[in-house]
């Protein structure tokens, strides 16, 4: 059975020494966000995740969800865990106190989210979707809708979904067929079929609040004609209690590769009663509010799985005795050395570690900017912060989940053949990790978002939020001898990224195919450079603690060196690919595939 121990030490390091706690405390409502307040939250979250959610991960995977006559049951123990989670207020951790939430920064929310994803990704889907639906109603719903739904979604009594996908319509939401017809009472009647609806039906909450994309009768074609509706499973009574059953049913559960304890439903809406959220035909904009937050959340899933995979791989590598170190015997008292001594095993473990810790830092600074973008009183500061979040969102979503897949596969690799055996739980991480590269926009779509939407927006203004601070950072430290091992590689990667950015933009203007052809490599190049910035900053922080005896900062520096020397050089290969252009993709005959 895999185990999980929340990496609280590293989380505190990132929150206190890499992200800017003072900046966070400067935001209205966050003045009190000191370690005294945050530490107990993290410790309690760690306890729930380690003691309640982790033990349910394997069993949930084995048992899966079941459906009978439209009634979906979650695996044993999930209901109790969900209740404990809700009672602890975890679902509303970063929700508005006005709605009964804890009002904590999203920076903290993301850290807790990481723990949940490490412990039990499938479980995390239920509160995760609820939070997305909460955010959409919060931003676009009417006062009445907010009053009716939000408090119950925050306390977990009711859960939420996002109903976008239809059989013929995935990425291209313009193809939506679900219809909404106005009724006399100001509500709408929704009819259509949705698939891949996470948490679409289950036995955890008293009511399920579906947010549904549908088209009004007078809708213009394409994505400009989509509206957003709130469709509860049970129509709320005047007292706000679940009342009459609405015309929405789960017709089937998808049979999936992983996250088996998460109910992924095919939903049928048959004249279901719903209410418009926001303005007619503006549904996609409302959905994007959720989607940006949701994409960051999916990125965190990759991070969470990389972390738990690393922890179990390290434990195994210490215990498993096989062969002798190729440079000499290490454990003379034992029949064989632990496999930890082997260079390739060390390479695997350090790679996973550098991925997880680098991503954790990048996630924390991005989440802080998200908090600033949400709360800062100065619109200019708000916009600058939002620019950074906009830019980082596709990178975090795609690179983190690619790393999640890499790191879980690598963790399994450390186990050798045992990793392939279900009992060890390593193969579940692999299967669970795979979905994160696919949903909320495949990673290919994220790359297109980066080169298509984010690169050129406002003549490259989003880019400024990254390039200017990174250049300033390099210039600030380039004279510092102690930082040379980190600044030099960062500076090189940064130059490559500048060059590639200018080239992708230039070529993309002439021929969008070229931008598309470079997109995936470009996103990775960007992400690796961003992580190099994180590792330089982490090294800088570690250098402040020469007297440290715990080994924490020493390990940090060592990992930073590993990243700079053994991972960052991938950027040169990526630049070479990007510069080669898309000709080979374009010219290949369709028929020859």
């Amino acid at each position, binding site marked *: 059975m895999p185990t999980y121990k929340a990496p609280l030490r590293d989380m505190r390091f990132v929150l206190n020494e890499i992200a800017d706690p003072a900046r966070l405390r400067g935001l209205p409502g966050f003045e009190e966000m000191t370690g005294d307040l945050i530490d107990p939250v993290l410790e309690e979250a760690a306890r729930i995740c380690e003691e309640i959610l982790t033990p349910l991960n394997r069993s949930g995977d084995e048992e899966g969800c079941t459906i009978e006559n439209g009634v979906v049951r979650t695996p044993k123990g999930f209901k109790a865990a969900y209740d404990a989670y809700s009672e602890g207020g975890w679902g509303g951790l970063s929700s508005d106190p006005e709605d009964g939430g804890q009002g904590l920064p999203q920076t903290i929310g993301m850290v807790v989210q990481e723990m949940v994803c490490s412990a039990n990704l499938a479980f995390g889907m239920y509160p995760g979707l609820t939070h997305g639906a909460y955010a959409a109603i919060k931003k676009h719903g009417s006062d009445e809708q907010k009053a009716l739904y939000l408090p119950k979604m925050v306390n977990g009594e009711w859960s939420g979904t996002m109903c976008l996908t239809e059989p013929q319509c995935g990425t291209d939401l313009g193809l939506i067929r679900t219809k909404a017809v106005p009724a006399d009472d100001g509500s709408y009647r929704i009819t259509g079929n949705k698939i891949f609806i996470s948490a679409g039906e289950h036995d955890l909450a008293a009511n399920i609040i579906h947010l549904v994309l549908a088209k009004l009768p007078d809708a*213009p074609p394409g994505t*400009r004609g989509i509206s957003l509706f709130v469709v509860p499973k049970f129509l709320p009574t005047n007292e706000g209690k679940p009342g009459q059953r609405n015309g929405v049913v789960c017709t089937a559960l998808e049979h999936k590769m992983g996250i088996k304890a998460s109910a992924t439903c095919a939903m049928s809406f048959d004249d279901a009663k719903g209410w418009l959220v926001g303005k007619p035909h503006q549904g996609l904009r409302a959905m994007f509010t959720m989607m940006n937050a949701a994409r960051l959340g999916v990125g965190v899933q990759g991070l969470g799985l990389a972390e738990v995979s690393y922890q179990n791989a390290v434990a195994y590598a210490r215990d498993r005795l096989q062969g002798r170190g190729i440079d000499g015997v290490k454990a003379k008292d034992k029949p064989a050395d632990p496999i930890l001594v082997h260079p390739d095993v060390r390479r695997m473990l350090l790679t996973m570690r550098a991925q997880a810790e680098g991503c954790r830092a990048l996630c924390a600074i991005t989440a802080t900017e998200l908090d600033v973008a949400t709360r800062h009183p100065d619109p200019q500061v708000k916009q600058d912060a939002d620019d950074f979040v906009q830019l980082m969102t596709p990178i975090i979503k795609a690179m983190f989940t690619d790393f999640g897949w890499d790191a879980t596969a690598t963790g399994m690799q450390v186990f050798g053949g045992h990793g392939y055996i279900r009992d060890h739980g390593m193969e579940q991480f692999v299967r669970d990790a795979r979905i994160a590269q696919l949903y909320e926009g495949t990673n290919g779509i994220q790359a297109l978002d980066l080169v298509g939407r984010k690169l050129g927006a406002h*003549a490259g203004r989003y*880019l*400024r939020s990254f390039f*200017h601070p990174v*250049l300033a950072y390099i210039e600030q430290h380039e004279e510092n001898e102690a930082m040379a091992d980190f600044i030099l590689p960062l500076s090189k990667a940064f130059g490559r990224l*500048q060059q590639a950015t*200018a080239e992708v*933009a230039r070529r993309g203007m002439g021929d969008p195919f070229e931008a598309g052809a470079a997109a995936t490599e470009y996103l990775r190049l960007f992400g690796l450079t961003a992580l190099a910035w994180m590792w330089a900053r982490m090294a800088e922080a570690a250098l402040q603690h020469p007297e440290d005896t715990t080994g924490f900062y020493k390990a940090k520096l060592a990992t930073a060196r590993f990243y700079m020397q053994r991972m960052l050089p991938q950027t040169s290969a990526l630049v070479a690919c990007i510069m080669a252009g898309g000709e080979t993709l374009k010219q290949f005959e369709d028929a020859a595939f």
Partner: protein
Amino acid sequence: MIRKVGVIGAGVMGAGIAAQVANAGVPVVLLDIIPGGAAKAVERMLRADPAPFMGRAPARLVTTGDIGTDLALLADCDWICEAIIERPDAKRALYAKLEAVRKPGSVVSSNTSTIPLAALTEGLGDGFAADFMVTHFFNPPRYMRLLEVVQGPRTRAEAVAMVSAFGDQRMGKTVVRCKDTPGFIANRIGGMWMQSAINNAFEFGLTVEEADAVNGRPMGIPKTGVFGLMDLVGIDLGPHVAASMKATLPAEDPYVLGLREHAVITRMIAEGRIGRKGKGGFYMRVKGQKLAMELGSGEYRPSAKPTLESLALRNLRELAEHPDRAGRYAKAVLLDMMSYAASLVPEIADTVADVDAAMRLGYAWKYGPFELIDRVGAPWLAQALRAAGRPVPALLEQVGDRGFYRVQDGVLEFFGTDGAYHPVPRAEGVVLLADIKRRSQPITKNASASLWDVGDGVACLEFHSKMNALDPDILALIGKAVAMGKKGAFKALVIHNEGEQFSVGANIGLALFAANIAAWGEIEGMIEGGQKAMRALREAPFPVVGAPSGMALGGGCEVLLHCDAVEAHAETYVGLVEVGVGLIPGWGGCTTMLRRWSEAPRMPKGPMPAVAKAFEMISTAQVAKSAAEAKEMLFFRPTDGVVMNRDRLLAAAKARALAMVENYAPPARGTLRLPGATGRAALSMAVQAQVAMGRATPHDVVVCEHLATTLTGGDTDFIVETTEDQVLKLERQGFMALLKTKGTLARVEHMLETGRPLRN
């Protein structure tokens, strides 16, 4: 030879015609029926925007008077142009009076747009008829380049030639000869188009936005479309035009058959909602919100961008074949307009080329009707007409599956009514780069610029980037052209293009993107590269002549500042407008303006006046609104030439360049006397005064500081000589420093996204 002109009638057209005559530097008498009316018209024009006068000097060439008392002022006029009320009897009565005062051999013309020439000469004798013709200008006369000329059977050929030559060479118009038929060419076809576009919009149930979207970019018509155009010219004009056409055209003419009265429009006119000059029209603005009228109900609603699928199509034929309502509408309008045009040659004009020229120049269409037919294909049009059960015009049958135009051996030819192709004629002395490009290959080219051999050893450097914005490619080609010239590939260089704008300046989108990714080295390279290119032009061992038309702003202005001479189209708009995007001129604009003002003969001596003048012009982004103004502001030299007719620009520039070849020596690098810190302090005080008056924004102050540092020579002193290289270095430093400020980045972004300056 026309040395003095009389214009009678000081309405919008008469006054505008008089102003344009004055713009050509020719004295003009302007008379009006209302006592004092002509003088008032001149006053009004001096305040109007867009301005009918090209500066204050031309206004002084206008002598005003009253028709009742001052007809004698016309005695020494060589050409008298009548632009009074559109009533034949009134016009004839005036002509009769003119016979008593005008000098022998003078020419009388009418600016009528609706009355046949024949009706105007009735009963006035052969002598008058020999000197009489129609000269039909378009509104506004300064800016619209079409002049329709109609001669009667008795009109003297020399009279026509004299007025045509004056209209062409002095007033800058393209003269199109028309037959004496109602509405002549442009209004006949333009009127039919508007009628069809309006009728069919009702018929197919289009919104005004949809109709305007069809009658806009897809057809190469200005984006006002049809309803926006009605708002612009006045909706009340419609019934007048309709009445006049009905009175003069045969009853079976499709124009007459198509006349409809729309109750909604009648009501609009009755209520004074006659367009921009009235209480709104098909569109109006209420509290900043744009409203559009529903054609069915006459009610207003917020204007919305049309979303029909067909409107996203770029190909006109695909649009006309699309089954949605905008597609069906487009087809109906095109069939009406194109078949009407095809049925009117040779009735209204000798050639299809004349018709197309009239529509391009008189209605600002990108393509005339026959060019449009070529775009959809003559066989497609014929087939569509047959399918609709409509007659196919003989000319369309005759052209068959060929085009109305073709390029044969590098020459553009049109399809004649004789069934043969003939070269599209160019007036004597006109040289068009487009013609040269058709018959030759560029000497060298890249994505944004080309170098052409324009004959007699002269090369022409053409920009062709978007809006002719200056980018690294253009700078590279300037360098290459100079290098080739040094090796003797040509003996003089002209910088000219036939785009709408000569150049809107440096490509700030590229600069902003580079700034956003902190590619400072690249931007420094662009500034230095630009300075090098400008210096190469100035110091080339052969003459370089700039020949601009339209906007020459920022870097575009700096290119001209580094030419040895400029032959400018009268309609050239010049300025160093960099401060609008939070920058200062970085390609020698500051340096050159300092030099020009310090060398200007009328300037007071001392280090400050020239600096203060350059500072004032650049810090407020002053733009010359004509070539004449550009000379006053020293963007052009007093010796630089002004060409009224755009089609004659290249020929003039080429002649100028050739005249400079012999014994040519490039100007030497000079030095300047600049005031340094004391001058900077004086300018800062001036800026602070502007701030106190609320005229300068916080970022203006930042920009002005860098501009002041550059123009005063940095750490120099007026007792030492400052080299131009030093000032150029200051330009670069100021530019880079500003580009690193948030205020400037915000300004550049705002300009790119909205086209307007940000006042931050």
